[in-house]
């Protein structure tokens, strides 16, 4: 059963009508990331400070003197969203303690793309998670450096053609597998880690709400379809996100205090070909390469199910 069944019926009641990430920004048509941010903000509500890493979202939303943000927002640089967020959180905490700002919870949320999270911002992210700041970090992963023109990142999937790992006679695009950032965050022993996708809006928003309510660091890895970089029609952004989940390439799950839970489990896992064939970035792949990808995806999915079935929560393992 789909978790977004009867979405049209429930959505108006479930989703905040307030727009915190407002229309008029300059995102490409069909941008999954802009949609995901809009949904994230609705789930977070007004008592939020957003810290943005350099990237598409910062560029398209804040061309001076305009801003799309109806939330307090700061951008400093590319690699440091997590570190800036640590400072914002520490600042708000100490000023609240000293009575200089109103005595209520304001959540600090850092956002970054896959480049700003998996690669250049990785050290700052690790530090902020390790130090236990009360910060939610949401990575909007569109699987390449899209802002600079579709270059390969640590999040680019195996076989995708990018402008720095292009497919050609002597190359099949990126020759390495995607870094598993979610598991790396789990290894930081933070209380809440989840994957999400804008194509499953209620699931994503529920996860944002849960992460927001948790005191301490949390991380959401949100797959965000980039029609421009993935070479898909802009009308296919939602469909591609759903196919990523239904093929098992991007399973939706959460890890709450060590306990793994699938938040959406497709009844039947579709072949990865269903996802890959519609995307220009994979157009060059041979049947053998497709088989290799299928094999790897099945293995990773089964590894995840094994964790879901067998790992216990910290509470259960105590004593």
């Amino acid at each position, binding site marked *: 059963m789909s978790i977004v069944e009867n979405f049209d019926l429930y959505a108006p009641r479930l989703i905040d009508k307030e727009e915190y990430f407002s229309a008029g920004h300059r995102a490409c048509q069909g941008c999954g990331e802009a949609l995901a941010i809009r949904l994230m903000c609705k789930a977070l509500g007004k008592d939020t400070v957003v*810290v943005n890493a350099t990237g598409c979202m910062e560029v398209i939303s804040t*061309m001076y003197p305009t801003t799309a943000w109806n*939330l307090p927002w700061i951008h400093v640089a590319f690699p440091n969203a997590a570190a800036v967020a640590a400072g914002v959180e520490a600042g708000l905490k100490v000023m609240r303690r000293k009575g200089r700002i109103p005595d209520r919870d304001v959540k600090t949320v850092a956002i970054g793309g896959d480049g700003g999270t998996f690669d250049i911002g990785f050290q700052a992210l690790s530090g902020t998670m390790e130090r236990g700041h009360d910060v939610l970090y949401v990575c909007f992963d569109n699987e390449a450096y899209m802002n600079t023109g579709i270059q390969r990142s640590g999040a680019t999937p195996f076989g995708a053609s990018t402008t720095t790992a292009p497919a050609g006679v002597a190359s099949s695009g990126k020759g390495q597998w995607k870094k598993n950032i979610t598991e790396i965050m789990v290894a930081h022993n933070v209380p809440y880690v989840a994957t999400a996708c804008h194509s499953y809006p209620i699931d994503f928003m529920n996860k944002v709400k849960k992460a927001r309510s948790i005191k301490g660091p949390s991380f959401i890895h949100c797959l965000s379809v980039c029609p421009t970089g993935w070479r898909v029609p802009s009308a296919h952004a939602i469909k591609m996100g759903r196919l990523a989940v239904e093929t098992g390439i991007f399973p939706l799950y959460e890890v709450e205090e060590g306990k793994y839970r699938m938040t959406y489990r497709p009844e039947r896992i579709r072949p990865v070909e269903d996802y890959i064939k519609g995307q220009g970035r994979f157009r060059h792949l041979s049947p053998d390469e497709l088989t290799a990808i299928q094999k790897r995806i099945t293995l990773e999915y089964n590894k995840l199910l094994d964790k879901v079935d067998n790992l216990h929560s910290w509470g259960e393992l105590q004593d």
Partner: protein
Amino acid sequence: MSKRIGMEIALAAAEAVALCKPDVVAAYPITPNTHVPEHLSDIVAEGRLDAEFICVESEHSALSACCGASGAGARSFTATSSQGLAYMSEIIPIASSMRLPVVMIVGNRALSGPINIWNDQSDIMYQRDSGWISMFAANGQETIDMAIQAFKIAEHRDVMLPVNVNLDGFQLTHVVEPMEMPDQKEVDSFLPPFKPIATLHPDKIVSMGTLGLPEIFNETAKSKDEILKDSRRVILEVWKEWEEKFGRKYEPIEACEARGSDVLLMTLGSMGETAEVAVEEARKDGISVGLLKLKLWRPFPFEELRKAVKGCKVLAVLDRAVSYGGPGGPVFSEVRSAFYDMQERPVVINEIIGLGGRDVPVSDFRKIIEKSVQAIKTKPEEEYEIFGVRGS
């Protein structure tokens, strides 16, 4: 009442910063400045300072966290040296551009390579054009005083710029000196609480650090330049108030025996103290020599400099950094530029000394004075010299 203390200068700097009640301190260990954040963490651990001390995983994150905290409206402080400062350098011009009044102490140390932990000023010179107010302490007392003044200058409504206070690594950071430490009441009466113009809070929404397109970029550059230049007025006001309250005078250029002297030395940082001894000795020997101690590096005190050299025949600028492939030392470059439009200007020579911790004893300053005296008659051939290079 101020208290007479004897203390390592880095620790005294931390005590002075604590008197300013920073809300957030973010720092990463690096020699030779480490004792500053170490001691601040002690002060926090002892419960003497109510602050969030963030043990960041890099200097890049130290200044990033300070930017976030300052944006939120918290008084923020960091300290670093050399490679740490270089590692921060992506964020340094952003902090000034965003008008975040972060205060930073820099324990000056040579930039690699070769790797070297000892003093020169190449680290801060590498950040020269970053839009920060930059001042140099010559001794422990100036370190304490400037650390406190820095917050007041940085947070002034007409300034709102970050400030770096420089003290020479080891030469100052690790030296025990007698100093006057102001008490909390005195600092409270001098330094008002931080009242930011805009903060990151949902009660009043702002966007900070937005994208500047070519259509507005020249304008942002001009405003940064004008604000930094105009900060001179506030710096002088704050120094005047400091003198009235604490009796210690601060000027962009401190002149010692300068008026009427044929030769002047110009120093930046702790070398001014040794140079002063050499100048006193030389004067006893009948040599007409004085000393200019540059304290304010940015905004550069062009006016004061032109006034200070009136009547002098040779000015020897002592640099503790090299502008490789350029005009010699960075101070020298500024000084010559300042003199270009003067009808009567002194001969300017440049001696680059004390790199990577190379000791510069009084006798070396005497040699430089000697060379300067000769330059009154014969203009030296080379524009600048890296002093005391073996084999040359």
